[in-house]
């Protein structure tokens, strides 16, 4: 039986890991107005690419991490152009179902290549020994690293959206695509950038996943549900909301294991999501525009 503070420490790690794909999903959802179910597969791609590079190359892990993020980010725009661009004008129903079909293809491709048995990357003891300074939270270096990367990503995404001309163009595209197009925003390029960012952030989450757990071909798909809960809890379009939503849901999921079976953890995310949908459908800080 783990005590409350330790579980909160775990929860911070879980939340931070969710935060990376959630930031990506939030941007893509704001720009495209449809939920890409295959977003979870970018997480799986990140984890498996990291695993493969770690197995076959002697490269240092930080370098592998960067390579994985670049590789997964590169698949985003390809997926967008090949699969979604031709049907963009159709109904949400069709886009959503297509993304589910895509998820099916990607997930089973991973299954066909790597098999159903779970994969893990070995780390030595020092990575999982709690840092003394964190006291009863018992945060391990692995979790601290995830928190740092997630924090850095959240900060850069926010600054990018607020301060750069590209960020401004992206927000314009999310607010009103037609108006953005006539105002000279390069819509195609911005969409490609959105998808590269979304996939890259999800890939980063996937690449960090081996630090804390083993993974199977359906890991990304299962994670997507909690990620979506995190995005909707905080409110679509609000980066601060996404950060808070992921941390709250991550901590709630881990703390819940004091009373319920750990297998049912995603249920906590769903329950929170249901409560949010009932009480405040827009989420805590939700607005219709990307901030």
């Amino acid at each position, binding site marked *: 039986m783990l005590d409350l503070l330790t579980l909160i420490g775990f929860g911070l790690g879980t939340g931070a890991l969710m935060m990376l794909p959630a930031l990506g999903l939030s941007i893509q959802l704001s720009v495209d107005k449809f939920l890409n179910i295959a977003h979870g597969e970018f997480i799986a791609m990140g984890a498996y690419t990291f695993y493969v590079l770690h197995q076959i190359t002697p490269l240092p892990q930080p370098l592998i991490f960067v390579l994985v993020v670049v590789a997964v980010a590169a698949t985003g725009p390809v997926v967008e152009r090949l699969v979604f661009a031709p049907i963009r004008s159709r109904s949400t129903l069709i886009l959503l179902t297509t993304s589910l079909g895509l998820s099916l293809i990607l997930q*089973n491709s991973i299954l066909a290549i790597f098999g159903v048995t779970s994969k893990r990357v070995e780390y030595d003891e020092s990575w999982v020994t709690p840092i003394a300074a964190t006291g009863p939270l018992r945060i391990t270096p692995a979790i601290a690293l995830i928190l740092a990367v997630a924090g850095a990503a959240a900060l850069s995404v926010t600054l990018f959206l607020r301060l750069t001309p590209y960020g401004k163009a992206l927000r314009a595209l999310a607010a009103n695509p037609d108006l953005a197009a006539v105002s000279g925003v390069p819509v195609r390029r911005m969409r490609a950038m959105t998808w590269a960012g979304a996939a890259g952030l999800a890939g980063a989450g996937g690449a960090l996943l081996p630090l804390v757990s083993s993974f199977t071909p359906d890991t990304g798909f299962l994670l997507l549900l909690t990620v979506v809960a995190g995005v909707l809890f905080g409110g679509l379009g609000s980066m601060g909301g996404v950060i808070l939503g992921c941390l709250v849901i991550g901590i709630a999921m881990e703390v819940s294991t004091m009373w319920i*079976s750990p297998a049912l953890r995603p249920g906590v995310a*769903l329950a929170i999501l249901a409560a949010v949908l009932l009480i405040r459908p827009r989420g805590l800080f939700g607005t219709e525009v990307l901030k």
Partner: protein
Amino acid sequence: MIQFLMTASVSALIFGLLSLGLNIQWGFGGMVNFGVVGFFSLGAYGTAMSAVTLPGDGGSRLSRDTFLFGLGLPFPVSIVIGVVTASVVAALLALLVLRAGLSDDYLGVVTLAFAQLLWLATSTQKGLVNGFNGIRNIPSPVDVNSPNYDQSYLLVAGAVAIVVGLIVWRIWRSPFGRVLRIVREDPQIGEALGYNASWHRIVAFTLGAAVAGLAGGLWAGFLGSITPNAFRIEETLLALAAVVVGGSGNVIGSLVGSFLVVGVINQGSRFIPWPVAIEEYVPPLRLILVGLLMVLVLRLRPAGVVPERLVKLRRPRSAASARTEVHSA
């Protein structure tokens, strides 16, 4: 071979019912349901739990089976309970999402999460419905010991399917079905005409789940034993693929789609003598093929193999002589 065809026919028929349930939601109502297997599962478990009898001492110590309950009711009553269970849960989920006026994305996520959770609960929580071991000795509506079991069951399931198909078709032609089509095309137009769009969609969603639950109950009765692994996400994807490929918005499309996706791709590929070297790759490849089919049909022929029929309606004589095409079944 005849035996196999009979068994396969029952499976295909029940799967056709499941797709029909999904088609009411997807094709008729324009709503996504990525958790259709959850309602199938609720129907099956609801029926099974109502129909089985627990041994005298609860059976738990001797057989190590642990159930929450077993009512020992006759099969027809049990299947009604199964259908009601699926409908009530569907109504609650639909109320949660649709009443708040949220878009389809949310309904997709909520239903997907619901099915995933139900699977987790039924499989990992042993005291609930006996976990991975599942439920055995579910009574069947026809004599299990008869040599013609499959044939008799095919007749029973076939009769049920025909009745359900007719009811669905009738509903589709009814004023309710017409409003549903308007709401599907544009909820705001429906609202502007004075109809309650959310209410129509919630009812349609519940109806679809009821049909899926009925399919689940028939499935439990046919097999006599069910385990959580019969209700994995793959079933949802196959049902969705059947509706997409067959053609949304009509009864025949569901059946054609089920035949193509389940009969040809999923069952038919079992008969190809795969070399041992690639045998283990066949199940994922099959699902990749289903996924590809879905993506391609949605891109190239979104109406499916059997498109929803358009009938020409004549305007009242006073109006212009122009003819208008209106969606109809």
